[in-house]
């Protein structure tokens, strides 16, 4: 698609159903995967709720799109950063999050966790390394 590879970070900051940012961010990630860039996702603030497990939207009549996150590993999107402080402020731990996995082609396709819990400072350093940050 392109001979340039850049580091893209999708920064997700908002809860999944109160606004459409989360769903439309995920749509960009899926389309963007075809461009074979170096992609990472980060979840901060209420954005951490986007990848909590056990989401049930039956009562609000909105499509539950959280199963789609589990497909990201198949799109070579396997760097998913979650800010530690945002989890703690909401009484959440990594056990409350979806079990997102990918198969590492450099390690005999071993199944590995995509989610990496990082501190705000570590996330700031990660953001500093990016070429493009799409903030939703």
């Amino acid at each position, binding site marked *: 698609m*392109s001979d*340039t590879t*850049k580091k*893209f970070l999708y920064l997700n900051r908002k809860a999944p159903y109160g606004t*459409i*940012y989360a769903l*439309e961010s995920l*749509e*960009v990630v899926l*389309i*963007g995967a*075809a*461009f074979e*860039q170096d992609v990472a996702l980060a979840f901060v603030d209420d954005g951490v709720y986007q990848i909590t497990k056990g989401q049930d939207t039956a009562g609000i009549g909105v499509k539950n799109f959280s199963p789609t996150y589990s497909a990201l590993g198949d799109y070579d999107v396997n760097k998913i950063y979650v800010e530690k402080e945002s989890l703690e402020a909401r009484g959440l731990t990594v056990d409350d999050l979806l079990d997102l996995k990918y198969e590492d082609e450099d390690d005999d396709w071993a199944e590995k966790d995509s989610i990496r819990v990082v501190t705000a400072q570590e996330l700031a350093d990660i953001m500093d390394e990016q*070429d*493009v*940050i*799409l*903030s*939703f």
Partner: protein
Amino acid sequence: MKFGILINEGPYQHQASDTAYNFVKAALDKGHEIFRIFFYHDGVNNGTRFTVPPQDDRNIQVRWSELAEKHGLDLVICIAAAQRRGIMDEDEAKRQGIDGNNIAPGFRISGLGQLIEAGIQADRLVVFGD
């Protein structure tokens, strides 16, 4: 420098489109290049020619259309976001069986790949949103 611009909010409700407009104008005045301006989320509502704001206020859509014509800017509306919000060009209206279109001059409807391409091609992608 070559800039890509992403606008994620609709006109009047939010300052994102105004701020982006002022940024783009200032960048062009300084001799920078604007690779593309991509409208996403409610930002697609910047591209309907059916807005009629009070005469003593700015017309955000007309301002974009005029700037695009003057500088040959590429104003791209995301098709998926546009379909949800009723922004139509002639082709899309025909395809969807809708009895009219409302896209403003200088805007075009295309896919999200255009946003990713802007991220790849531009030196900086600047996001204007909430």
